[in-house]
């Protein structure tokens, strides 16, 4: 944990300074998670603030401060899902419409290694957003929490309130759907398939 249990307990008991300390400790992590979950940079801070407002409202219900982090992840996931449901829109960033030849030509023109690195990262983000945009929000969030945020199955149990076996099944099925989505994307855009 990024803060000690006493700080969580004091925040739970209404100590404003302790709550501020909690937010300061976790805001970067929450912002990062929200950014990956919703994929809309402009709304990341608003959703993160909503997460902390929900935390402020519900902290009194936290019986065991030791499970504060999974609790916060659950709030983050729910707030992000609510945001996505309201917007009913997929992440803004999409795979570039450039053909592979155009991308390669553009790559060749890149001057510095840093530019090349940035471009590659951008392509990775666009490709993954495109791929994960093909599956349901539930699948996408689960996969991001597990594979990108690096939550263990034990932590995911607390987030989703289901047992480990059920989570394994969900993860397996989510990966299967990503595989199908990838195959469909390849069929739709055969020109791009060499890029992945």
């Amino acid at each position, binding site marked *: 944990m990024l803060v000690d249990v006493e700080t969580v307990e004091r925040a739970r008991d209404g100590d404003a300074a302790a709550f501020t300390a909690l937010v300061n400790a976790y805001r970067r992590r929450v*912002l990062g998670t929200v950014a990956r979950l919703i994929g809309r940079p402009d709304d990341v801070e608003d959703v993160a603030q909503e997460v902390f407002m929900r935390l402020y409202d519900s902290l009194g219900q936290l019986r065991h401060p030791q499970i504060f982090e999974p609790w916060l992840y659950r709030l983050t996931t729910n707030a992000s899902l609510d945001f996505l449901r309201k917007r009913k829109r997929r992440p803004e960033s999409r795979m570039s419409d450039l053909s592979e030849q155009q991308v390669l030509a553009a790559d060749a023109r890149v001057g510095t290694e840093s530019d090349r690195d940035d471009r590659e990262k951008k392509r990775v983000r666009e490709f993954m957003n495109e791929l994960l945009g093909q599956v349901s929000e539930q699948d996408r969030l689960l996969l991001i929490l597990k594979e990108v945020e690096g939550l263990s199955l034990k932590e995911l149990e607390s987030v989703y309130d289901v047992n480990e076996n059920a989570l394994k099944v969900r993860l397996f099925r989510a990966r299967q759907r990503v595989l199908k989505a*990838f195959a469909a994307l390849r069929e739709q855009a055969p020109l791009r398939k*060499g890029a992945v």
Partner: protein
Amino acid sequence: MKEQFDARDPRQFDARLDEWFSAYRDACPQPEPSADFMPRLWARIENRQQFQTVVAWRRWAEAFLSLAAAASLLIVLLQGAPQSTPVYYHSTYLDQLSEDAGPERMLLQEVALADAQAPMPRVPAPEVNRR
């Protein structure tokens, strides 16, 4: 990410998907909170609390109004309900007293009449000692 692989092979795909997720993790920029993140958060929390207080008061007021309306309706219904005819006394207290004493007087009169009509019992005359 340009290496070819057979997506129909689940093992190859799983391994590749893990690589993509890892690359995605590294490629995602870490957003920085703005300078006014905390002040804005506290302002929003306070606004929400004020709003919740107003909403709570409003609910109380609505509940009170509903109760008052229900009580008023109940009173109106009770007022309009048919009631048993009340007993009104049109005579004075003394008239009433004399009316109430009527049967007793009649009884006394009847007794007196009966006494008058009945033959008087003969009482033997006391013997005079003539000695």
